[in-house]
Each structure stands twice: as C-alpha cells, then as structure tokens.
C-alpha cells in the first residue's frame, strides 16, 4: 500500500477528527466526510487511518466508501471538469458533451487523467438550467456547451 505518502499535517488533522468523535465507530460516515474534505479524496491509506482511529475493520470502511457515491477514491484533477446531467442539460445533449470530454481525455466518468491534470465527473442539476448544458471547470462555468466546443475548452487549460 506504500503507493502514496500522505501529508503529515493532514494525517494529524484526521487523527484529531477521530479523537473529536471519541473513536466511535458509529461516526464513521461523519469522519469519512471530514477526511474527504481534508484530503480531497479517500485513498486506501486514508481509509486505513480511519479504520484504526475508529476501531472498525478496514473492510467495513471500504464498504461504506463504496456504498455512497459522494465518497471518492480518486484524487480530483488539477482542473476538475463537471458536466451537469440534470434534466434540462440532459435533454439538450449533455451526454454527448460528457462523451466528448471522455473521448478527448481518454477517461471514463469519475476518472482522472494519468498526468493528474483533468478529472471528469457528472453532476446532478446545478440550478443553472437557463444555460443548459452546463459545464464547470474548476470555478469557471461554461453555458450552452456543445460537443464541438469541448476541444476549445480543454485548450484553455493547455490540453
């Protein structure tokens, strides 16, 4: 499991969270939530710390992480791309836009490119239906995106 080294300060922060929750296994979801905020994602190494901190099995932690789609085990890319798949965006072709991103980046939804630059995810309605289909890259919002625009958007970030 020695694939990645975790930032020591963040590890301490997570351990403090376990203490705050009294090492109570019943608080697993809350602790994982906090862990994901600290690290941005939940790699195996983080799950091991949580398991030890709450005195539950690693298998159980992994079971919970894989059960809730909110939790993720892949780090977000430097430029996280999100495509809204709410009804309005969907009927206006958001799926084609999503497919185009995945095609150009060689990813599947939920994945990050091997160089760590981009990650692709789909979102529930972001409430900007007037702009459908909506794409966000980091903080920046793109409206009325068509598949043909994807290449240009990626180019802005050096792809």
């Amino acid at each position, binding site marked *: 499991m*020695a694939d990645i080294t975790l930032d020591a300060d963040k590890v301490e922060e997570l351990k403090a969270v376990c203490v705050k929750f009294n090492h109570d296994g019943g608080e697993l979801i809350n602790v994982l939530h906090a862990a994901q905020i600290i690290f941005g994602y939940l790699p195996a190494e983080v799950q091991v710390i949580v398991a030890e901190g709450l005195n539950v*099995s*690693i298998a159980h932690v992994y*079971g919970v992480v894989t059960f809730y789609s909110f939790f993720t085990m892949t780090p977000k890319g430097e430029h996280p791309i999100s495509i809204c798949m709410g009804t309005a965006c969907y009927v206006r072709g958001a799926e084609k836009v999503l497919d185009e991103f995945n095609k150009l980046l060689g990813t599947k939804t939920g994945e990050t490119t091997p160089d760590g630059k981009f990650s692709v995810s789909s979102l529930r309605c972001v409430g900007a239906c007037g702009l459908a289909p909506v794409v966000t890259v980091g903080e920046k919002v793109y409206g009325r995106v068509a598949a043909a625009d994807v290449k240009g958007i990626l180019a802005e970030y050096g792809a």
Partner: protein
Amino acid sequence: METVQLTIDNKKVEVAKGTTILEAAKTIGVDIPTLCHMKLEDTNFENNPGGCRVCVVEVAGRRNLAPACKSECTPNMEVNTHSVRVVNARRTVMELILSDHPSDCLVCAKAGNCDLQDMAQTLGIRQIPFQGEKNEYKSDESPAIIREMEKCIMCRRCETACNKVQTVGVLSAINRGFESVVAPAFEMDLDHSNCTFCGQCVAVCPTGALTERDHSREVLDAIVDPTKTVIVNTAPAVRAALGEEFGMEAGTRVTGKMVSALRKIGFDYVFDTDFAADLTIMEEGTELLGRLSKHLAGDKDVKLPILTSCCPGWVNFFEYNFPDMLDVPSTAKSPQQMFGAIAKSYFAEKLGKKREDLVVVSVMPCLAKKYECSRDEFKTDGNPEVDLSISTRELAQMIKNYNINFNQLEDEDFDQPLGESTGASVIFGTTGGVIEAAVRTAYEVHTKKECPSVDFKELRGMEGIRSATIDFDGLPINIGIAHGLGNARKLLEDVRAGKSNFHAIEIMACPGGCIGGGGQPYHHGKVETLKARQKAIYSEDESKTLRKSHENPFVQKLYEEFLGEPCGHKSHELLHTHYYDKKNVDKK
C-alpha cells in the same frame, strides 16, 4: 413468561413474546423455506438480514406478504405459510435471484450441497423468465479458499461469520444495488488480507461463491506417479463426520471404513494424524510444565498462560492481532506439521528414501491447514513437510470418484508405526480436547501419580468460553478454553491487560473446535450435527485401551530411537516453530 397465541396454517400455536413466525412455525413442524437466514443454536452465529424474501408468508389482514424470519408473532395473528400467493411470490423471488446467477450447476463445486440449488428444485423452477445483465467479478484464489462472487446471493452469512463470530473483519458488503457484493477491503485478494483461513465463511455460504481450494487432483497425480511413495494421515475430526457425506447419521464413527477407503484409493501408507497429536502433547505438555515450574520457582520472565498452538487459523489470528504476544503461545507445531516432519525424517530414513520421494497428504477438517502446509518455515530446501492438505469434503469426493461403496466397507486398521494413537489424541477434534489430553499427561508427569480418572468432564462442553481448575495433587491449575475467534479475542485481551489468572488456555478457531471446521461436511445450520460429532469423538476416546499420550508405545519408541527427549535438541529442530508479526505486512 409472556406468551402470544396465534394460528399458523389453521393450527393454534402459543409462543413466547418476541418469537418470529419462522421459529413459531418450527414448533408445529412447519419448516418455512429460508435462504439468507441462518442461526446456529447455542452459539453466537445468527444471520438475519431479511434480505432474500424467500421466507414470505401471508398474514390475514395485511396487504403485503411478511418475511417470516423477520416478523414477530402478534396476538391472534393468522398466518398462512403456503397459500397460492405465497408460493407464487417465492417462485418470483427465486427467479429474480437466479436471473443474476450463472447456470453452472453441472460443474459447480457446491452442487448437491447448495441451498440455492435445493431451493430452486423445491420450488420447481424450470426456467428463468427474467434475463438480466449478469455481474462479473475477478476470481480470487488463495491457498485455502476460492471466491467466485458471480455465485454470491448477498445473504451476508459470511460477513456474520467473519465479523461477528470470528471478529476478523475481513469481509464487508461493498458497492450498492446491482453491483453490490461481499469483498475484502479494496477488493484485495483474501491472501493479502488479514484472513485467517478459518473457513467459517465457507462453512455457512449457501452457494458455491465460497469454496475450498481443491487439491484432490494433485493427490491423484501423486498416487499414479510410480516414483512417489504417498503417505496419508487423517485428523481426528474427520472420522466423526465423513460418514455424513454417505448418508450416515451425524455422529457415526467411520474410522475403520475410512482407512479401508484410503487403501483402496491407493495410498502407500495410511497413517493417523492422531499419532502426531500424541506427540504434540508430549512437547506441549513438557513446555507447559517447564514454564510452570519456572513460574513456581519465582521466575518473573516466564510467560503464563501458555496458549495451545495446534490450530493454524488461530495462529494466523494472533499473528495479525496480537503481534505483541508472540512469545505466549506454545512453540509446538500443529499435529499436521509434526506428522509431516516425522514422516519426512524418521520414517523416510526407515524406508531408505529421500524426503523428495515422499508425498505427504493430510486429510483435515480444516481449510487453514492448506495454508499452514504452504508456509515457508515448514519447508526444508523447498520441500514441504506436508505436500497437500485436503478437506473431509474433498476426501468424500475422492471416494465417490473411485466408485467405492463406502457404507459396505469392512473396517481396517491404520498402518504402523505412525498409525498408533491413544484416546487423548482423538479428543483433539473437539473444543476442550487438546487441553484435556495435555492435562492427562501433565498431571502424571508432574505428580508422578496416576490420574484418579482420565475423564476431566469439567473441561468439556460447547459454551464459547469455559474455565476450570484442576487439582494437580495440591497444586491448582487454572485452565481456560475458547472456541471461535471472537471468544479467543476476549481471553487474549484479558491476558494482554494482565487480568488473566490462567496457567494454560486452549484455543480453537472454529466453533466447536475441529468438528466444526471449515472443511467438514456442511452442517446447513444444524448445531445438533456438531454436537453429535463431539459425542462420537468422546466415545472413540472411551473405546481405546490407551488414553494418555505418553502411553503411546510408538511415541515412546520414537523418542528412544530418534528424538531423545521431549523439548530436547532434535525436537526443537523438528517439532517446534516460531511466529511472525503480520500486523504491518504490506497489504495490497
């Protein structure tokens, strides 16, 4: 006791408050079909997720069918367990389960013993109308257990066994909905996890999702190889259960028939692991007395209690969970490994053969033994002490392959010298047996007097944790016993905390001890089966003329001719081992 009256299938029933419909129906002889539910009475195994819905019944006045395993009886309830609606619902449930299940029955290791297959037959399912997407998972082959999760029906019995009963915590349901499955963390292989290979998940899995790694083909290959001398040895618990595979009542002793079948299969020597169990007692008993006398002489460094070490599932468990206490268990190897070590040294010399020319096969009630014999420290120049370890079930399968009419076989005796055993070694097969055997010998060695009685009944039973004090002629010896790893954990935590006043503790990983091992014929949730096997073990002990390990004449001869004395130099080399800290081994 507060009771509830109700009717089930028009029969009046009165049961204690809190009883489920399933249990209430049983009291009037109505067996409602179940799939996910499993309860082993008198143990802490109870799996009741209410997930499969095969057990539905109709309750008058309720719109929805009720799962009998989850629904408590209420006053004046009218239950119908086999209305048309119920029968149709059960069929639909089964058809849905089967729509995501491979139709592999013809070649499945579990066929004939599979609860799912049985249920499909009971309900007369002849086609699967729902053709859905089928899940695919990578298969996982550890040295002991094979996981084929396409065959998993998410009953979660394995989770209950691993997490609740054994407290190993290797398995968990992961993902959600259609993709959900039971797996170790990060979907790593069992071999890389903290799995102890106790096999209790296999023992309760209703389908072919979890099975043992089958080595019987390799055994046959060795038998037909003219350059190999193939030696088999059989563990005590096997003889108390093998008959079940041939339709005999649980608890039928089949020692003689088993020996006869093994000869027919073509093993060159049919020996008994019990011989090595007697040897284990000589070593472990001597070690116990050694530590005890140092302790009595005031030596503060000596570790007590001494823990038995003949169960490899238990050894794995403490290597993972109690690495700070590796010097507490006895260093004596398990009988399986002692047998192999002696067969490939002493006996090989007698035959004038090299160890490479011998193939040692053991027949075990256990899956952890498959892993144990593959451990590196049990090899000499790469050659293992025990080459292949097969389960009771695999032996039954081999006997069937050979078209041997097991029930008609004449009784035969084991070969000598490694086939001689005492009653003490036979009881190794049940919880409490190893320590009773050790006490029979340690008592006489320590007091230099004969035991007043060989039957130490205070050490027997089925409770998960037991204790007794045995009077060694004025010296009280406190004995602890645990079976099931969850119970073992409790005793061990006391030892770690310095709260334990035991001198010796016997631990077996499997509920009931080896009679309930992961390689035994499936008990299908019947605890009576385990109890019947336990009785068979004690009656075999009683039937023996020699009942104390140190009286085994061939063991005595082995010490005279070859080993010297118990715990002596040669014994240490061949019959003792050491343990490893596995807590921090790389897991991925």
